[in-house]
């Protein structure tokens, strides 16, 4: 298990290194990095002063060294908009997104397992075909449009739910979570269904049925345990992709999360904050990938023994 973990951590760290270096070199690729950090309206004196203060007049390897040292100390400079430390802003925004993503994935996985298993129990039955069509549509709806429609119907016309903001009871969660949910849910239903169909046709399921096990026991006790591996893999990928959705949802519903922070810093050209947010997201994804690998190893003894590439 320890060897397994060490190998997975090493191979997951490669993307992380790429991102850290990528952000550095991307900032230098346009020529003068001061262009990136300062807004377009900055005067010549401001630019010269900033350049000297940030060490942009040093050689590139020296700059890289400073950058890495700063990144290791979580020091990404200060925001041009607020004057706050970029790290602080990112750390403030992070829990919001994390909560949103956590609730969404929990609901998506539970719902998809239930509906996917139900659909797989009788392939091509009415339930299966309805679930298939619904999940396919859910996976292809643009999330920003779904959110805007939700606001139009439930926020404006029916006035049941608030149109934006985080203040209030559980009702503020409904639309953001629903928007984030549709795509992972649609994809997961298809994956659960696919792997359950193959698991349910395996000999051990026939034996269990022949011995008179109830359908619930066959599905949840026997088939699901063996069908869970591909579901975990895809769920991990979808959680990474949830960042895409978070950017949209937080912008539309005005949630002060990391996605909104990124878009705001882009639109107001606040590179220090963008950089901090991107690197923070990269670290989270790195941790998430390892978590998925550990779950794999826990549920499937074959993974533990096989030497991962």
């Amino acid at each position: 298990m320890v060897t397994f973990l060490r190998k997975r951590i090493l191979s997951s760290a490669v993307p992380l290194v790429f991102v850290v270096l990528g952000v550095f070199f991307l900032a230098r690729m346009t020529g003068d990095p001061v262009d990136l950090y300062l807004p377009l309206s900055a005067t010549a004196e401001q630019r010269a002063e900033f350049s000297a203060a940030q060490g942009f007049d040093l050689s590139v390897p020296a700059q890289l060294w400073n950058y890495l040292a700063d990144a290791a100390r979580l020091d990404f400079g200060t925001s041009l908009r607020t004057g706050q430390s970029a790290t602080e802003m990112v750390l403030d925004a992070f829990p919001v997104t994390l909560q949103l993503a956590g609730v969404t994935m929990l609901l998506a996985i539970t719902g998809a397992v239930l509906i996917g298993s139900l659909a797989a129990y009788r392939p091509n039955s009415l339930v299966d075909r309805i679930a298939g069509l619904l999940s396919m549509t859910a996976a292809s709806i643009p999330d920003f449009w779904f959110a805007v429609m939700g606001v139009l119907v439930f926020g404006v016309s029916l006035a049941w739910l608030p149109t934006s903001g985080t203040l209030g009871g559980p009702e503020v969660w409904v639309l953001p979570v629903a928007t984030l949910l549709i795509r992972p849910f649609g994809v997961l239903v298809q994956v659960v269904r696919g792997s359950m169909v193959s698991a349910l046709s395996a000999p051990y399921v026939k034996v269990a049925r022949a011995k008179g096990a109830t359908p619930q026991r066959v599905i949840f006790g026997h088939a699901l345990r063996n069908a869970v591996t591909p579901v975990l893999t895809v769920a991990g990928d979808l959680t990474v992709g949830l960042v895409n959705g978070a950017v949209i949802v937080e912008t539309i519903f005005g949630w002060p999360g990391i996605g909104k922070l990124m878009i705001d810093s882009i639109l107001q050209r606040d590179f220090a904050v963008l950089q901090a947010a991107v690197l923070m997201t990269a670290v989270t994804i790195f941790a998430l990938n390892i978590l998925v690998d550990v779950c794999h190893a826990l549920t499937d003894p074959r993974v533990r023994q096989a030497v991962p590439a």
Partner: protein
Amino acid sequence: MSEGRIVTEETEEEVPAANGREDAPGPTPAPKSPPRWWLLLGRDRVAAAGAVVLTVVLLVALFGRLLIGDRAQRQDLDASLRAPSLSDGFYGLLGTDVLGRSVLARLIDAAGTTLSVAVPAVLCSLVIGSAIGLWAGYHGGRRESVAMRVADVILSFPSLLIAVVVLYVFSPSALNIVLILAVARIPVYLRTSRAEAAELRSRLFVDAARTFGTPSRQIIHRHILPIALPTLLTVATLDFCFVMLTESSLSFLGIGIQPPDVSWGLMVAQGRQYLQTAWWITVLPGLAIVLTTVSATVLAAWARIATDPAQRWRLTLPRKRRGASAAVPPEMIP
């Protein structure tokens, strides 16, 4: 995306094999005419509807701008925010936006923009990804592991995040969006084609070709590519949805297509302020996106079965009796 090509190419190339197997014993009778792809498509009404929608969108994107001229940009402040109605002529069918521009004309114009981003992006990633993937999968060894690591690196990042950073540094233009989307989606084809090539390289006919001294580039081109192509085209159809959705999201966020150009995602963003008074500006472009992506998804699901000789017979049965089809491989999920 030409959905026609997916099926024609595969039917023509699979048929000799299928006939050869059936007719092997006995004196070869007249070869049974192969199941025509449009007949198979006709039997599946949902897939046929998807194909029709995609064809219409493609035609509108290609020729729509020629027909409407500058109507998409022409303002008429007297006709601001008119609801869809039958009495305002062709351009008033779907109402007008706040500047009095015809929503129908803008939808047609936007179809051109959206497809002119999505199609080149998909084609680029398809060609580059498959070429590298087949090469890596055929040779194996170090080349394979390097290619797969690169794919892992790209895929472990949310595509919107890559796009956001790159579009911050470089200006958001249609060309940059195409390039980013192409790079972000290369790994999908790379993984699929590598898996196909790795499986095919140990087949007998490849061994035979190698024994005769065929150079590896030719083996990949002549013997491996034709078999991997149907799968790759199916993946491309699905990927088209993904690319379209990402472009729409970027445009919606204001870092994609920039006005005065117009794309479906941008139209949704522009209509958001008038949501309470003029729902049609926001609802209709979104519906256009949903319709196109759902059609492509349905068609891809159909093509996945139709291009698989072991499963194609299912399509000759009515939907109810087809039985469980094989599980969808993870790369094929949008």
